[in-house]
């Protein structure tokens, strides 16, 4: 097995000072939603961690997840996490192609048997194998062959995590998620369309730092990022509590930045970190830009009714979930529900 340097050695070779390293650890702690008091422990763990091998498989996907990730991988502190892994196979990013690329995948699997990570974006078609192939190998065969010696599998994006758009009704390719096929390895789901880049790097940082996958919720998502709903952490939440809602996209409520619940915001039933981590180098997130949350990190979000229908119309999630969300907010009550019912009646009539 070839020598794999520690992360500390890699950073030292790059001329990163101890102060720079502490800064790196502070960002890592922040990424992992760990308290700053954990920074010394993170520093010790990362310094001695060995550079892990990563194999990235892309199946039925749009490359949006890779786009999201590479936009965060400019030479930044979090980008160092990617310097600290050995990305041995990635269709879009690697220079090799054809037999050479496949040889690289097999070599990485053999050299790191039992310890490498497999990252997957895209859903896997289970209908005709010819729907999606790489080097003449069906997606199912490539996935199952590659995960055999993996330590863990990370499903990147809603397609890999839950089937996503290819799996939406009527699902012509028989698309399934990674966890539908891989049942004997730890699978971490990092959904989103696309996922937040920092969440993807955080999962890798967690593995790098502690050699294990993070704590997960019932859908296999890291609790550190998917433990709260968008609504829980939304800066517009006080308006929800006060019963102040935008009714249309150009009314006074919208201009005043009021809650977008009645415009179809799925924040109350969507678990993700957009409201705090935000997008585009922390600039904003959809609600801050005036658009309701679509709920893209929830299973089967494409098939749960119109994006602009309020939750209270009952299309998105169970009635109990919606009722729970309404109870969590104090003042929504009958007004919004009645408006939702009126709107539902309108949609039904129009349909």
């Amino acid at each position, binding site marked *: 097995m070839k020598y794999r340097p520690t992360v500390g050695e890699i950073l030292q070779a790059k001329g*990163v*000072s*101890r*102060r*720079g390293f*502490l*800064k*790196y650890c*502070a*960002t890592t*702690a*922040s990424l992992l*939603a760990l*308290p*700053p*008091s954990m920074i010394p422990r993170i520093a010790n763990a990362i310094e001695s961690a060995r550079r892990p091998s990563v194999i990235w498989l892309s199946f039925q996907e749009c490359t949006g997840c890779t786009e999201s990730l590479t936009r965060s991988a*400019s*030479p*930044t*502190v*979090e*980008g*160092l996490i990617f310097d600290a892994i050995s990305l041995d196979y990635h269709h879009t990013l690697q220079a090799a192609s054809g037999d050479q690329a496949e040889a690289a995948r097999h070599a990485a699997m053999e050299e790191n048997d039992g310890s490498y990570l497999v990252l997957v974006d895209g859903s896997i078609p289970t209908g005709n194998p010819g729907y999606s192939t790489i080097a003449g190998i069906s997606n199912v065969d490539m996935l199952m062959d590659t995960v055999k010696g993996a330590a863990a599998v990370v499903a990147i994006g809603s397609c890999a995590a839950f089937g996503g758009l290819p799996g939406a009704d009527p699902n012509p390719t028989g698309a399934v998620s990674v966890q539908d096929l891989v049942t004997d390895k730890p699978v971490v789901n990092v959904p989103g369309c696309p996922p937040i880049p920092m969440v993807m790097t955080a999962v890798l940082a967690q593995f790098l730092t502690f050699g294990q996958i993070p704590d997960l919720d019932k859908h296999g998502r890291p609790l550190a990022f998917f433990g709260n709903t968008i609504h829980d*952490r*939304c*800066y*517009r*939440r*006080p308006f929800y509590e006060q019963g102040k809602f935008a009714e249309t996209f150009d009314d006074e409520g919208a*201009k*005043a*930045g*009021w809650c977008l619940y009645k415009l179809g915001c799925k924040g109350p039933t969507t678990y993700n970190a957009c*409201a*705090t*981590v935000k997008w585009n*180098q*922390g600039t904003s997130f959809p609600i*801050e830009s005036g658009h309701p949350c679509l709920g893209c990190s929830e299973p089967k979000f494409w098939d749960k009714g119109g994006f602009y229908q309020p939750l209270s119309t009952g299309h998105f999630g169970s009635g109990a979930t919606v009722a729970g969300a309404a109870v969590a907010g104090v003042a929504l009550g009958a007004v919004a529900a009645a408006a939702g019912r009126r709107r539902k009646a309108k949609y039904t009539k129009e349909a």
Partner: protein
Amino acid sequence: MSTANDIPIQGGAAHGNVRPILFEVLHALDKLLDDDIPTTIDLAGLPFGPGELEKLEAALGHGELVAQLNALGTSHIRETAYPGVWWVEHRNVNDEVTGRYIEITRFPEILSSQDADIGAARARLRETFE
């Protein structure tokens, strides 16, 4: 109106997220003075509406000491108008903010010369005599 920045933003700074953080800072000062325990508040995990972060920064104000660290990008570390309360902002080499913290401490640890760097410095200086 020629750029996006010219568009007036309404509805900002009315979300009530600043005052609780100032209370947290106050309690952290109690801990520092009474028990000698420093506190770091990671601002990344807190929800801020448009303009609220700026409001928080303005509320803490500027103090006597400002430092700049140049390692993996620039970091700005300054004492606020409240001694013992430091505003720490880390940026990457693209000048994008990667972390913002309020440290309630006598002296932020990252400003201290680190043993590993001191050791490397000693070796480097020693080489100049050989």
